[in-house]
């Protein structure tokens, strides 16, 4: 159909999703952007956050991605994700525990490199928690 956009979600390990949808909202690093059919071509980095897949006016699918890249053409939206989990599969308690562990790691880290790695992981875990609190508020 002409008014649908082909949405692809790819992780390094496999092709996760490939389906025509009405609209996707991608958390770009410079702000969220919605992609409809006929969007002007662009390439953007993606920050850790939630991708919303729309079918009509409803959100049919919410997927958490831990950063990556998005390529948009007129007929297609491809997201290369580093890690992708369906939002319903995230467990609040586990994420909270992860944040706690990572904060400790951050305090323990000795070198700058270690610190940077821990910080990046922590940012992802925090974004997960944000995503969860948002979805429960809905």
């Amino acid at each position, binding site marked *: 159909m002409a008014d649908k956009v082909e949405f692809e979600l*790819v992780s*390094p390990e496999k092709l996760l999703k490939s389906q025509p949808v009405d609209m996707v909202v991608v958390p770009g690093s410079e702000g969220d952007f919605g992609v409809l059919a006929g969007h002007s071509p*662009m*390439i953007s980095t993606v920050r850790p956050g939630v991708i919303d897949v729309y079918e009509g006016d409803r959100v049919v699918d919410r997927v958490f991605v831990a950063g990556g*890249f998005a390529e948009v053409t007129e007929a297609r939206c491809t997201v*290369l994700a580093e890690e992708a989990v369906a939002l319903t599969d995230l467990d609040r308690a586990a994420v909270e525990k992860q944040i706690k562990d990572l904060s400790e790691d951050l305090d323990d880290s000795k070198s700058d490199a270690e610190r940077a790695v821990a910080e990046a992981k922590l940012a992802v875990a925090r974004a997960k928690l944000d995503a969860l609190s948002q979805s429960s508020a809905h």
Partner: protein
Amino acid sequence: MPNLKDLKNRISSVQSTRKITSAMKMVAASKLRRAQDQAEASGPYAERMGRMLSSLAANVQDSGNGPKLMTGTGADKVHLLVVISSDRGLCGAFNGSIVREAKRQITRLQSEGKTVKLLTVGRKGRDQLKREFASLIVESYEDVGRRRLGFSDADMVATKVLAMFDAGEFDVCSVIFNKFKSAISQIVTVQQLIPFAVATEATEAAGADAKAMYEFEPDEEQILAELLPRNLSIQIYRALLESAASEQGARMTAMDNATRNAGDMINKLTITYNRTRQAYITKELIEIISGAEAL
């Protein structure tokens, strides 16, 4: 005359060897299938990454100040070789051919007056290279992807390589691995990772449109700076997957041969055993008959 009991022991020991090799062959076959599936599954990501890279590269090349990962450091003195081998043996010439190619590269580079550093993945490659080039090995990884090879394994190697590159410890980085062609043949491949050669023919073809077409958010350089390290991980991941599939393929073939050889050996031994047994019987008969005749 050979002892009958010894022969019998020999036959049963070869028989149990055959059982083991044929079991290993079947295990390798099923692991090979899994490794191949995994290698296939990583295809789409790599392909799309390549497409993005070439359209980005087309834009940045004009400005002339691409990131170092693509343009190189400008020098060509220190080479880092990432050698990917297996942790376990019994897989035919798999590790041997990797090590031979690595040695060839090392000697070639050294004869050109360049410094070589080694980063090994897999126990076998490290052990064999250590004999001659122990001082060149800067880092080695073992048990990579022992249960299931994940992207995080590749990321770990890539992070180390990047850290070394940022510290200016080498100028050029190549990876040596077995590329999977079929269960019977694996091709030793040397692939340059840093500076990364973007597929130019794709750039040529798509270049004109790509340049006009895409908008970038944030700007090209920044995206490229994030994309290139990721691409490095992907290339290493692909190499690891290819190597894993090759290893199982090589092991399957080696074990198939071993099983067949064991079968041949059992046949030969059984014939010898039967002949010997007959000879004993004949000998005993002759003794009895000649004893009776003497009376």
